[in-house]
């Protein structure tokens, strides 16, 4: 257990500092994520494309950057990320039709580029349109393939916990 030697020589303050170091890294990551949320206006500013329903534009594993500014109206042809009420997983599809009221309220219909039918089959029982409240954000930019890591970590949670555990251990034990 040689790698623990540094830790064994630490006094109380140094041990607390190691824990704090770990906390600072987690806090920084958290603050960057929350910061992105504030700046983009979206509760999930970065999402991973999970299916091939938007090929050839997006592929499984692509990373999308979203904004959700109220000032930007949703228009037909735009790619939006939305959540169906009661379901956790966001869907990335294109807007097909919009009904817009004078006051700005909208009802819109979506469809995946690579799907044969529109998304009505995915919506809730009896729901035929989506509304602004269902929107997580609009795609503004993307990076290909990088999201595959996220998909792997979700499909194999043990892998995710192992990686996080090892990273955490490394930060706690290693002196700067």
């Amino acid at each position: 257990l040689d790698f623990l030697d540094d830790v064994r020589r630490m006094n109380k303050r140094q041990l607390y500092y190691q824990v704090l170091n770990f906390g600072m890294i987690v806090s920084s990551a958290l603050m960057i994520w929350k910061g992105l949320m504030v700046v983009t206006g979206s509760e999930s500013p970065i999402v991973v494309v999970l299916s091939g329903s938007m090929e050839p534009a997006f592929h499984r594993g692509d990373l999308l950057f979203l904004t959700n500014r109220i000032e930007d109206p949703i228009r037909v042809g735009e790619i939006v990320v939305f959540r169906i009420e009661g379901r956790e997983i966001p869907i990335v599809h294109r807007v097909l039709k919009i009904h817009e009221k004078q006051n700005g309220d909208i009802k819109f219909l979506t469809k995946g580029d690579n799907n044969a039918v529109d998304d009505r089959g995915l919506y809730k029982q009896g729901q035929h349109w989506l509304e602004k409240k269902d929107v997580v954000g609009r795609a503004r930019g993307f990076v290909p393939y990088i999201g595959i890591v996220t998909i792997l970590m979700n499909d194999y949670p043990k892998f995710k916990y192992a990686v996080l555990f090892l990273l955490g251990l490394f930060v706690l034990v290693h002196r700067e």
Partner: protein
Amino acid sequence: QWKIDDKPVKIDKWDGSAVKNSLDDSAKKVLLEKYKYVENFRLIDGRLIICTISCLFAIVALIWDYLHPFPESKPVLAFCVVSYPLQILPWLYQKEKSIFLVAHRKDPAGMDPDDVWQLSSSLKRFDDKYTLKVTFISGKTKQQREAEFTKSIAKFFDNNGTLVMEAYEPEVSKLHDSLALERKTK
């Protein structure tokens, strides 16, 4: 046995930060154990407190966002996110100064204010030259004097990466004594 304070320090001689840390720690030991100075934890405690508060801000942001889902939490989040880097800045600046020990020497007669000794060091990346600087601040006259040496770390570590105190301790003591002596002759 958990604590290994008495065993000789053995590190990876190619790991620059481990080398610097062990040299710093041992210089600390010389001042605290040989000369019996008392460590002043204010500097270190200050750093710990700043970092703890920053983490608290992050935790507050997390909990607030959980209780009042976005977008209602926007103002609180914005506040936490902006103030977080502002708090880290003083901490980062502190690290730049690289002082790793502030110690006091109490006046044996109990009349004059404490003399303050500071240790700071630097070891550039991939370089073998270690610089140790001792700063003495007289409690009585508030005058400040410093002395430093720059030596190759090869002078203090053997081939296995074990710190040889017989080679290092005299250097530290010499540096210390050069400042203490000046004081006595004045």
